[in-house]
């Protein structure tokens, strides 16, 4: 279970964030150079944050290591719609710190992206940014850390503490459920609220059956 105390600790840590400002973008070995080119990293604000916990871990396929995840965050980000435009190639990966985030909607029209990130992410220390155009499933932890560091170097900072606080307030209590499908089903309401034109996805998430 992701306890309330952990959440409080996370909130405290974000207050001590040191912003890294840099202007250098270098090329990753094996990863196309696509570190965020703007200081906001393409992410304009964090609108919503809610922790979730799972009784049955699920495989997080957005990194090469594919860890088993039993806790994480549901985040709603306001982003540059241009960056969110789904593409087949040259699609920048949305990072939360050193984790490629799991996108659960398109968000190109609304500018709101609902993502899942593993629970070991420290939001107060994590810049939110669009990075490399490499496929998330091929990005390993070292490369992801490198992406985060690059973002920090060019001036992408973690979201302000007040914004994170507000987002958690909006998200409310930890969603404690049995399996990831229960989280996905919850996403329908969030997409309806933040990106309502994505009716096909809303329907798809609502259709996911709950299992005993």
């Amino acid at each position, binding site marked *: 279970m992701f306890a309330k105390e952990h959440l409080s600790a996370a909130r405290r840590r974000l207050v001590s964030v040191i912003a890294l400002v840099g202007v250098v973008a270098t090329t990753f070995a094996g990863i196309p150079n696509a570190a965020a080119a703007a200081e906001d990293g393409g992410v304009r604000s964090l609108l919503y944050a809610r922790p979730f916990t799972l009784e049955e871990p699920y495989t997080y*396929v957005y990194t090469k290591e594919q860890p088993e995840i039993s806790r994480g965050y549901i985040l709603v980000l306001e982003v540059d719609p241009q960056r969110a435009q*789904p593409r*087949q*190639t040259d699609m920048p990966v949305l990072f939360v710190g050193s984790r490629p985030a799991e996108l659960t909607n398109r968000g190109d029209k609304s500018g709101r992206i609902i993502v899942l990130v593993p629970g070991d992410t420290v939001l107060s220390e994590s810049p939110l940014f669009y990075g490399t155009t490499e496929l*998330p499933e091929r990005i390993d932890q070292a490369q992801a850390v490198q992406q985060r560091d690059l973002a920090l170097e060019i001036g992408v900072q973690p979201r302000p503490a007040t914004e994170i606080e507000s987002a958690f307030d909006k998200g409310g209590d930890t969603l404690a459920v049995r399996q990831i*499908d229960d989280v996905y089903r919850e996403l329908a309401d969030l997409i309806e609220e933040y990106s309502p034109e994505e009716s*096909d996805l809303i329907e*798809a998430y609502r*259709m996911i*059956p709950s299992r005993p």
Partner: protein
Amino acid sequence: MRNTTHKSLAGIASLVVLVAMSSATPTLSNPDAPRSTRIVEPLVVGGQSCTIQILAEAVVCEGEETPFVAELVCADGLLLVNDPEWLLDGEPVGSGDQIQLELTAGEHLVEVSCGSCQDQILVEAVDCSMQPKLDAVYSDDQTEADPGIFLAANIAPVNGLTFGHLRYAMRPFTLAADSSVADGTYTLTVEGDPILELYEESGASISLPAAYDRSELPVTFLVNATTLGEADLVATRSENATTGSPTEDRVRVRVGPWPGLSGRELSAHPHFLFANTFNDDDVMTAAIDPSRHAERIGLTYDAYVVAQRPASAWALGGTLVDVTGGAEAMTVQAGSIGDNITELWSSGLDAGDRLSRDYAIVFDFGQDGRFDPGDLIDGFSYSEAGTHVVADLSQPGPYDVSVETYSGGGFLTQVLYYPSSIEQLGAVPLVVVSHGNGHAYTWYEYLGNHFASHGYVLMSHRNNTVPGIETASTTTLTNTDYLLGNLDTIAGGVLDGHIDESALTWIGHSRGGEGVVRAYDRVLEDPGLVTHFSAEDIALVGSIAPTAFLPSDESDPHEVDYFLIGAEADGDVSGRPNCTQCQYFRLSDRAQGKVQTLYVHGAAHNDFNCCGNDDGTGPNQIGRAESQVIAKSYLLALVEYYIQGNEATKEYFTRMYDDLSPSGIDASVEISTSYRELGTPSNLVIDDFQSAGSTGQSSSGGTVTLDVSNVFEGFNEDNDTSFTPTTTDPMNGMIYHSGQGDFTKGLIFDHSTDSARFLEFEVVPEFRDFRFHQYLSFRACQGTRHEETRALNGPHSFGVTLRDASGQTSTVRFGAWGELTQLYPRTGYGSFTGWVNEMNTVRIPLATFEMDGTGIDLSDIVAIRFEFGSDFGAERGRIGIDDIQVMKE
């Protein structure tokens, strides 16, 4: 019905009149015997002249009508004012291009005159009563001797069970004796290749040599050809012949490839292209080549289009029922096949209740309303029709459609389209659609409704494309497995027992297009990934505008039959030179099965779904509606052929787009199509450029000679990030190979306007017999933005010449029916205009090289020569070429 005529010679106008002789007339003497022929001073008019020559045998039978033919050749522009006048032994006997004379025993002088041109011949008339009379039905003595009659090899071995229908592919013969002869023994033998069998009409086999007493004659029997070759059927009578009297008659039988009758009329040489598929808004035509069937020249036949039936069904009776409104009588004309094209069905071709209907074409030489042995048929087969009529493939089929959406959790979310009456159907094929990144599983409703209305089940599923290709492939696998594992509950179990689980098709779009390839690769290598199907059950994989992220050992179609649609105005997976994952043709060039590609000018990436953003880039965009007409037409054609075995739709992939395209597609649309078979062992691969990486030697080991310019052989790879042509990037515009383990190689060169150029491939001895194959095939493209391409500024074509061991050549200019597409005029990524090099497959029926009596010997082809320049097609250009092979089917 009508006959169409072509003037075949531009220079010397040739008037050659051949005579159709009575089949009862015996053949006399050695045709090679010396003739007494004198060419007299020709008529000269304004510096131009005529000559005349008698065509006849030097020894003929006394008392029998014998034909004499005058061959008059005049310089262009001269007209024959008076008919040639004939003299026999100095006495006038008539006029005309030909004359029948009945000669008494002894020597005679036959003369002919056109005025100032004359010829004469000494003819000896002899007693022929002792000569056997061996004749094939629908033939004449002169042709029986040389060049012989044509017979197609039968389709199966003959036995007691099959004779009843296989006899329809045999040729009736008669052996008779002169009525004045009362006795003697007549013997039948075969000389030459062991290719002929003889049967009595009852089906009893005739052992050779076969001897008949005079009292048994006349006797009629059937000649069956078992395989290709040439043989003489010889009848002899040895007793009591007077000196000088012939005692033998023989018929040469040429058993060669049979291209059928149906095809398309062309406006230029070779005048006719043998083909089987017609759209229902086409005109159905057929043709008989008078050089192949020389023995039938002058004979009249009734041309029928009849419902196709299996060969075995003809045993029940040969009554012909024409479906076009009535058969009409035609006559086989001497000269060109272009003079023998018949319009069989001019409008309203019937494609039947579904999307195609099969027909056979019969030329009824007996003119008795029956198909009998000796008639010609296109469509005598156990499985393949003679010709097909195909409806507009973009139109809905006859079935109402039901739709069901459901979820098994997470990405196991699917929408199902199926015929509402599926409970009344058997097991139907399943098509699975895997969408692209940022797309939705509900965006392919147009394909779902289309396939279901034609009797298929289509399932489109949520596809986990954002992480990448591996995850997309996983959801293709898991969704397919989920559906097949839950047929008893999904949609109330209505599909249970109604899906053919051994004939699955995967179609993916963009990342999903690569995902289905990766899924196939994975399940092939690790069958344990799924429970309810295996790689063997995946019969077809198709990609629409796919990405190419993964290396060749991960995204590999292997030997599965594969299809790819590329969109030339794609603003995302664009094929551009600086983006390896955009170079989709790498996927199709990795495939080792039967591979077809479609490259659509003006189509954008998301034109192939309902709702993706408009990323179209480039001129002349065709829009979503037209792109989906293309997708519906070709994807249905594809599944019909590969899954249902419907031969009717195969030619949409094997013929050039200019030559045949689905009828629903707007005439303004430009598409390049390619088709190749790498994994068909029976094909003769002349050069695939994969080995012997020298321009002087082919992969099959033959010598390559050429005088084209700027030749480069190597990887089909644009090696820089620009489409601007440079000398350091000879394969500019080729996106078929780009590292990551790809292997495709080819040849590229150019030719300018200075003179004709060539590229010649020696055919190695073990490949030289082409008779058992049907097509010469290669794929070729223009080189983008090259100065010669820019100067041409249009489509390109060239000539293909075969040369046999005797030096005889035959040239076909494929531009008569299709051309290498002008490259899509998109700009960017360098200077000038033009996009990816578009491969077009050119398949030339080998029968085309034989047409009009070229004399080419397909049993011994020593060279294939590609010829460039204005005499052969385009005057200049930059050309890439690959996969030159002689194909079985």
